[in-house]
């Protein structure tokens, strides 16, 4: 028996695990299926429903679902086809949900990285901005912005970015604060790696896990937030179908016509579920330790 206990050659099994098969899982398949199929439908909504779900058929008001091929998911109080509106409305919801989340993510992550890595003046300045942001009630901010600038899709997205970057900034900053003291970061500094490469090459990849989780949750949250803004009349034009707007519409009829509310609600749920599943999977597999972390 020799002393060299370090098995210099790792077992073959470790190598096999690196093949592509390990990347597949039910989580990913189901999540990707949900997200992709909904996405494709939404993107093709213009082809499928050229009228954009805005055609009014007053003779077919409040038609129940699954009774007519023409309106398979029923109609709303103005006789508009629910299916067409759900699919078309997805465009707004997807756009708002994804764009505002990505915007907040990029802004917040940058702020968090700078504040956490450089500390000192920038940290104090940026984090006080964050505190001010947290102290402002969202609805107050929304009403103010809309009153001055008027409602519109771009303003809704901008508003959400402004209200949500703080979460990312705080999350990233707290991660960076501990990471910058870690020895591999110090090692990188010791061999003269420039700051930008340390921040983006060493620190950022190690903060991704929680960011991804927050991101998937935020997409869902933002779709709902857009609906509340629309409901309050602060969001997008009520004529344009959106899931949030449909929920608000259906609220009045929930006792006589449940379908007006349920189908857009279902669409939101499936979207969020798909994104969360994919986010979970992504977090596990971005981490080389993912296998053991599970």
């Amino acid at each position, binding site marked *: 028996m*020799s*002393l*060299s206990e*370090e098995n*210099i050659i790792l077992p073959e099994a470790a190598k096999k695990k690196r093949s592509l098969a390990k990347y597949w899982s039910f989580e990913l398949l189901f999540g990707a299926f949900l997200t992709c199929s909904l996405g494709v439908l939404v993107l093709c909504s213009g082809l499928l429903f050229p009228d954009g779900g805005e055609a009014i058929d007053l003779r077919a008001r409040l038609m129940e679902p699954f009774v007519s091929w023409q309106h398979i998911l029923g109609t709303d109080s103005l006789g508009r086809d629910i299916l067409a509106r759900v699919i078309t409305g997805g465009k707004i919801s997807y756009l708002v949900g994804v764009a505002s989340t990505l915007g907040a993510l990029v802004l917040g992550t940058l702020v968090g990285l700078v504040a956490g890595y450089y500390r000192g003046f920038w940290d104090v300045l940026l984090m006080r901005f964050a505190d001010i942001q947290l102290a402002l009630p969202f609805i107050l901010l929304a009403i103010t912005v809309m009153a001055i600038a008027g409602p519109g899709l771009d303003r809704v997205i901008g508003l959400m970015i402004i209200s949500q970057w703080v979460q990312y900034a705080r999350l990233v900053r707290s991660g960076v604060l501990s990471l910058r003291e870690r*020895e591999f970061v*110090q090692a990188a500094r*010791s061999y003269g790696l420039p700051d930008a490469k340390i921040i983006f090459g060493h620190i950022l*990849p190690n903060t991704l896990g929680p960011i991804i989780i927050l991101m998937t949750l935020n997409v869902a949250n933002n779709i709902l937030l857009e609906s509340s803004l629309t409901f309050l009349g602060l969001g997008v034009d009520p004529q344009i179908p959106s899931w949030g707007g449909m929920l608000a519409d259906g609220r009045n009829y929930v006792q006589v016509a449940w379908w007006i509310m349920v189908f857009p609600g279902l669409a939101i749920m499936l979207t969020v579920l798909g994104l969360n599943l994919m986010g979970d999977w992504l977090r596990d597999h971005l981490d080389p330790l993912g296998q053991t972390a599970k």
Partner: protein
Amino acid sequence: MINTIGEVATDAHRGPVLRVQDLSIEFGDPRAPFCAVQKLSYSLDQGKTLAIVGESGSGKSVSSLALLGLIPHVGGRISQGTVLFDSPHYGHEVNINDLPEKALRILRGNEIAMIFQEPMTSLNPVYTVGSQIIEAIKLHSQKTTIEARREALEWLERVRLPHAKRIIDSYPHQLSGGMRQRAMIAMALSCRPKILIADEPTTALDVTIQAQILHIIRELQSELDMAVVFISHDMGVVSEMADDVLVMRQGLKVEYGDVKDVLVKPQHPYTKSLLAAVPRIGSMENKTLPERFDIVEDKQQRTDGPIYTAVAPKYENAPLLEVAGLTTRFNIRSGLLNKVTHHVHAAESVGFQLFKGETLGLVGESGSGKSTVGKTIQQLIDPVGGTVRFRGQDVFQLPKAQRKKFRQEIQYIFQDPYGSLNPRKKIGESIAEPIRTHGLLESKSAIEKRVKELLERVGLQSMHYDRYPHEFSGGQRQRICIARALACEPSLIIADEAVSALDVSVQAQVLNLMMDLQAEKGLSYLFISHDMAVIERVCHRVAVMYLGQLVELGPREQIFKNPQHPYTRRLLSAVPELNPSKKRESVPLEGEIPSAVRAVGDAPFVHGFDEVSPGHFLAQNAGNFRWV
């Protein structure tokens, strides 16, 4: 449920208090279990100490958790065997494995107590030390709080904590590591257990504090006539503490017997090679050069290049690195206006020279500022004053852009091989990064080829290029860090406790590699360590640091044979010796290392140096040195 296997111990005085028979412990999937411990048997007599020795993963800690019935708590199973404990509570021998949880709780802490390695985390930070001891006492007796408090105070005095009356109402963070470990011992012993399990109780402590703690454990052991299961990886500590030794490797018992037999005349090849890898203080007498460890290395497995013999550095040339008056302080802010009220005087006017091909050992205990000196030279920390001249150029006087060159020529190796590699980067990329940063090689293929060469040079394989750090053991990771340092083609490597986290056999291998590289490439090392034995083995010259200042600096042989400063002597005498027939009797000096935190304006006195013999410098105020 209580088993009465075996006879009730009639001879209550000297019979074995603990008998472990054929104990096997498994983890994981029952169909393909991982056997952490296999068929382990030993017995422990009252008042005796059994040391369980082994390297990480040998199952030494897991086997001792079984004595407390804690295996299910850590997710394992006892697949076989018995743990028979002669319990005073039951009045007869009981099998720990068969006892229900409720019965185990009576035994835990009361009759079998445990102390852990990390004194920082084993006390609850939100309760005072006293209330935690009082809780332990009240749990196992009918005493009132006042009685329990009196007893707790008594125990704190018994573990020789100064100002026990004050400490009983202190929170753990107000105490030093050594004081916390004493408080832990007081808590563990407060119920007068029959068996004390000590799991690496001094590994996290400084060597002078370690000597104190070991002394207290030994003294209280004979006072309470208690049996001790002492788990350690440190052969010196084992030699000092144990009556019997059990050597474990990968869950198996390798050798078991009297401490004198096992450590002096080891039978098993593993024990022999383990002992050969232990650096022993005094083994380098009359040798001026560093020496490789004579470890049994399987020739087929050795891939890290040829063996070199150490050569003497040329002292007549100009020094490679010249540090003078280096002072680094950290600010402590407090108060309403957040003003700087105190400084941590991490390094005060430190000066030394380092020559090409030389290893300078920088030795000291925690808080002595040895790492700060290394990090300041590496420009990871900005100094308050002083100069660092590398090849004659003052590093801190140069504009930022030109300093980059020094970050190529001076490389740093950190203590923690787990922390110093980015877990999300393939190791090949980690090693390639400094090459790209300094533009040493242009083409992608040339970089990859160079990285693969480096991997092979440090004893890994080129096919490891695409692996992630978590796929490697601690020693392998430290080899990767060495490869990354070599990638810059440095002339100086600062090794900051680079082998402290490694098992002793791996430590010997990594040190051999470092010494080979020095002889091959003429590298200089600034070798920062707390381990005197390692320092003696690898260094040409040694500098001893205490409270931010050098106190003694000289050729290694001089420092070890003829230490002049009282602190150096103290440090040397505290190192446990690997000689079981010679148990240390003298009481180690009490006291803690003073704090380097001082109020603004209260800078410490900077002492000068006398040359006591050629090249051997001693602090001028050595005669006034007092251990506070």
